[in-house]
C-alpha cells in the first residue's frame, strides 16, 4: 500500500473532536502510534476509547498556554509527523470587530500552532523526513462577508508555513497545509442545519466529511508525498465559488 504509516509516531492536536478525532482514529487503524491532545479531558477520553490497538498517548493541553506547549513537547517523544487540527471559529464583520476578539482568534489559530511547532523543533522532536501538516481552510484563500478574523488567521498560518518549510527543508522535514471548504463536524450547531443544506447546493461532490480530510492528511504524512512541501492542498468538492 502506498500509504503506510505503521509504527509512525504522530502528534495530533485538536483531537477531542471533529477532524482531529477522525485523524487520530484513522492513524490508529493504520498502525501508527498517536499522541493526541486537546483541552477537554472528558472528550479526549472519548477519543481514546475510539482508538484501536495500544501505545497511544493522551496529553491534555491548552495550546494558547506556553507552559502547556512545553509540557506537550516534553511528553510527545520523537515524532514522524504532526497534524495541527486545533482551531476555533472567528466570524465577525469589520464594523463589529474589536482588538480582543481578533487577538483571540489569531492566538488560537495562528500563534498557538506556530509556537508549538517551534518548541518541537527546538527540542529536536521532529525526525528527519518527518511531515508537519496544518489544517487551514479555504477561507484562508477566499473572501467571505463576516469571515475576516478566521480568514486572516488561516492565511497567516499558510504564510508562515511557507517560510518555515524552507527553514526545515535541509533536514528533509516537510510542511504543508490542507485547506478544506465546508466539512460537516461538531463545529456546526443544530442551528446551522438549514444554512448547511443551502451551502451544499454549491458543492457538486457534496459537503466534506472528516474522513475526506483525514485521507488527505494520511497521504501527506506518508512517504508517498515525499516531494510535496510548502503547499496548501485545496479540497472543496468542486465548488465553483462564484
Amino acid at each position, binding site marked *: 500500500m*502506498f*500509504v503506510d504509516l505503521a509504527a509512525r509516531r504522530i502528534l495530533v492536536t485538536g483531537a477531542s473532536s471533529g477532524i482531529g478525532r477522525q485523524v487520530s482514529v484513522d492513524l490508529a487503524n493504520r498502525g501508527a502510534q498517536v499522541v493526541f491532545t486537546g483541552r477537554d479531558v472528558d472528550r479526549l477520553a472519548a477519543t481514546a476509547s475510539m482508538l484501536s490497538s495500544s501505545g497511544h498517548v493522551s496529553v491534555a493541553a491548552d495550546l494558547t498556554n506556553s507552559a502547556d506547549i512545553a509540557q506537550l513537547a516534553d511528553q510527545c517523544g520523537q515524532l514522524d509527523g504532526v497534524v495541527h487540527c486545533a482551531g476555533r471559529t472567528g466570524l465577525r464583520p469589520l464594523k463589529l470587530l474589536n482588538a480582543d476578539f481578533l487577538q483571540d482568534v489569531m492566538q488560537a489559530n495562528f500563534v498557538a500552532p506556530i509556537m508549538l511547532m517551534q518548541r518541537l523543533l527546538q527540542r529536536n522532536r521532529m525526525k528527519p523526513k518527518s511531515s508537519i501538516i496544518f489544517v487551514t481552510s479555504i477561507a484562508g484563500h477566499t473572501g467571505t462577508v463576516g469571515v475576516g478574523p478566521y480568514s486572516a488567521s488561516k492565511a497567516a498560518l499558510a504564510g508562515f508555513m511557507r517560510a518555515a*518549510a524552507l527553514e526545515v527543508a535541509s533536514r528533509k522535514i516537510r510542511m504543508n497545509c490542507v485547506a478544506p471548504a465546508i466539512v460537516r463536524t461538531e463545529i456546526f450547531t443544530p442551528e446551522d442545519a438549514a444554512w448547511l443544506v443551502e451551502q451544499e447546493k454549491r458543492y457538486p461532490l457534496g459537503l466534506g466529511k472528516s474522513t475526506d480530510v483525514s485521507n488527505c492528511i*494520511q497521504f501527506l504524512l506518508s512517504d*508517498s508525498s*515525499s516531494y510535496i512541501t510548502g503547499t496548501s492542498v485545496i479540497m472543496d468538492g468542486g465548488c*465553483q465559488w462564484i
Partner: protein
Amino acid sequence: MSDPFSLENKTILVTGSSSGIGESIAVQCAREGAKVIVTGRNLERMEAVFNSLPGEGHQKIAADLISADERNALVDSIPVLDGVVLNSGVFPGLVPFNLVDDQVFASTLNNNFLSPVALLKRIVARKKLTNSGSVVFITGMAALLSPTASAAYVGSKGAANSASRSIAADLARRKIRVNNVALGYVSTKLTESTMSQETMAMTPLGVARPEEVVGPVLFLLSAASSWMTRSTLVVDGGLSLKIPYGF
C-alpha cells in the same frame, strides 16, 4: 470496508507510459493492484514497460495521440476505465521567445494540450470512463513559474491546467473527478539533457526521481481523494514556495 487508498482491480490508462514519469506511474499503479493500459509511440519501450508490470490483466496499445484516427482507435480498443492519467507531453527545450518557430508553438500546444483534451473528450463521449472515475492531468509548476525561454511549453501546460478545471466542472454531474499534479523538476532523460545544473539545484528538496512524484497521482486516482476535483496538487519539492502565484 476496503481501504480508500486501494487501486485493486481499477482499470487505469496512462498515456506516455513508455518512459520517464509515465513509466513510473504505470509500474506503481500495477504494484497497487490496478489493471494498467500502457500507451506510447515507441513500440519497443512500451513493450518493455508492459513486460515489467507486476500482476495481470494489463494491456498495451501503441498510439500517437496527435493523430485523431489513432486516438479513436485507442478509445475503441479499451475497456471502461476507472482512471485516466494524461501524462504524455513534449518539452521543446529552452528557446528565447523571438527565436521560437511558429511550428514549435503549434506542435507543443498540440502534444501537451489539444491531444490529451481531445482524447479525454473521446473517452467521455464513448462512455469509456465510469461515473466516479478519476482523471489526472500531469501539468507543471512551470505554468506559473513561467521561466525565461519557455513560452511554448509553459503556455501549453497552463492551457491544460486551466481547461482541466473547466472540464472538472462539466463532468462533476457524473461524479467524475478531474485534478492536476503540477510537477517541479524531475530527473528524466528529457530534463537532464536540457536543464542547467543551477536550474536543477534551485529546488529546496532537490530534484526528484520519477518514482518520487507518483504517490500524488495514486492518491488522486484512489477513493481517498473522492472529495477532490478541480484541484491541483503541487509536487515540486518546494520550488514554487518563493513565488507569489499559486494554483
